[in-house]
C-alpha cells in the first residue's frame, strides 16, 4: 500500500508480538482429569483456550505461559512444565 503520510493510521494488518517465545513454562492439560468446566478458558488472558469437539484444548501459538489456567483449574488438571520438556 502506498502511504500518503497524512495521518498515521494502522490499516494494513494486525500488529502482533510473538508472545509464545516468552514462555519459560508451558501449560499442559491432562484431559483425563479435566471435567470440562471451562474455567481455564474464562481466565486465560490471551484467549489461548478453546473448546473443540467438546474438549478443552490449549493453543500454544500465543500462550505466554502465565500459569493462570493451572492456578485456577479447580481440578488441577493443568500443569506448568518447562518449555521444551513435556
Amino acid at each position, binding site marked *: 500500500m502506498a*502511504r*500518503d*503520510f*497524512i*495521518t*498515521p*493510521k*494502522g*490499516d494494513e494488518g494486525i*500488529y502482533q508480538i510473538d508472545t509464545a517465545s516468552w514462555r519459560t513454562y508451558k501449560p499442559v492439560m491432562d484431559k483425563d482429569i479435566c471435567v470440562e468446566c471451562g474455567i481455564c478458558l474464562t481466565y486465560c488472558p490471551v484467549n489461548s483456550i478453546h473448546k473443540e469437539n467438546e474438549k478443552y484444548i490449549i493453543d500454544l501459538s500465543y500462550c505466554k505461559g502465565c500459569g493462570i489456567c493451572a492456578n485456577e483449574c479447580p481440578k488441577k488438571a493443568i500443569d506448568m512444565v518447562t518449555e521444551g520438556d513435556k
Partner: protein
Amino acid sequence: MGKTIAITGNTAAALGAALSRPKVIAAYPITPQSSVVEYAASMIADGQLQSSMVQVESEHSAMSVVQGAAMAGARTFTATSAQGLALMYEPYFRMSTLRLPMVMAVAGREMTAPETIWSGHQDTISVRDAGWIQIYVEDNQEALDMIIQGYKLAEDKDVLIPVNICYDGFYISHLYEGVNIPEQSEVDAYLPPYKQEHVILDPEKPMAVDPMTPGNLVMKYRKSHLDAMQRAFAVLDKADKDFGDQFGRYYGGTVEEYKCDDADIVLITMGAMSGTAKAAVDEKRAQGVKVGLLKIRMMRPFPKQQVAKVLADKKAYAVIDKNVVFGWNTGAVYMETQAALNQLGYKIASLPVIGGLGGADISLEHMTNVIEKLEKMNKGDDEQECYWLED
C-alpha cells in the same frame, strides 16, 4: 445576493460557521468570544441550524470533542480566545498533526498575566507553531467570509490542515457594522459537503488512528505537513478567487496590498489595525507621502515570498505587531519578516513596532507617527530598538 444587516463580529463568525453546516460544534464561553457560542446555540434552539452542540466543561474538551467528531468524518466548528486557546493547547496541537481539517474562530485576546480580558494577538501568535493555518481578518465581513473560505482551504485534499480564523477581540468581536449575509444556497454551491477520505473511525472500515510511530516515519509525517502548509498559499489564493467570483468580494489571498505599487515605504499589519493603517495611508498619501500597506492575512504558513516581493524595491518598512516575541525585543511578524527577507536575499531598512497589547488602542495618530518615522529612515538602516505605541 444575500442581505446586509448590522451585526457584531461574533455574530458574523457564528453565521459564517452556520452557513458552513458543521455537524458538530463544541465550544466553551470566554470573553470576548462568548456570543459566538450563544448565537450558535440560539440558532440551534430555534431550529435554524442542524448541528449537534456539545456543552463542554472546558476548552480542552471542546477541542477533544471536535477531534473525536472529525475522526469520525464530521465537519466541525469551535471558537475560543486567550486562556481557552491555551487550555486546549495539547489537543490543539494534536488536531493539526492528525491533519483533521476544521475551522476554529479565535477572538484574539491578550494572554494573562497581567489579568486582562482585552484585545491582543498574543494568544494565537504564541501558538503559531502548533501546526495550524492562521488567517487574520480585518472586519466583520471578512470574518464571516473567511470562515467559509477556511473550510474550503482546510478540507482541500492538498492541504488537510485545520484553520484558525483570527479576529481581534472587541475591535472586531464586538464591532457592530453592516455585513452582507450570503444565501445558504450560494454557500452550499461554494462549499460542498465534506467527505473525509484519509482517515476514519468507522466499524465498516476498521483501522487504528495514530498507532505508535517510530522516528523515521515521524520525519515523513512532519515533512508532509510542512509541504501541505506550503501548498496552502496557492489553495487560499484560489479559494479567494473562487469566492470573489461567486460573492463579489476578493481579499487578496495570503496578503492584501494597499497602495503598495508605487510606494517607497510600507506598513505591515495584521487584523483590525489594518483598517486604521489604511486610513493613515490615505491621510499621508494626501500629504504626498508615498506610503503603502501590506496586510498579512495568512500568518501560518508565513507568506515569505509574497512579503519579500512587495518589499523588494522599497526604501523602508515598519511592522506593527500586536504581540511580543519574548525572546526578542520585537513582535513575531517583524521577526519573521526579517527572516524571510534574509533567506530570500533582501535587506531593507525596517522599524519594529509594538502596540495594542491588552486592549490598548492603536490610533490613527500612532499609525501616522510610524509613517513619519519611516520617512526619516535611510536605506539599509535598521532600528534595533522597538517603537512602543504608548498613549
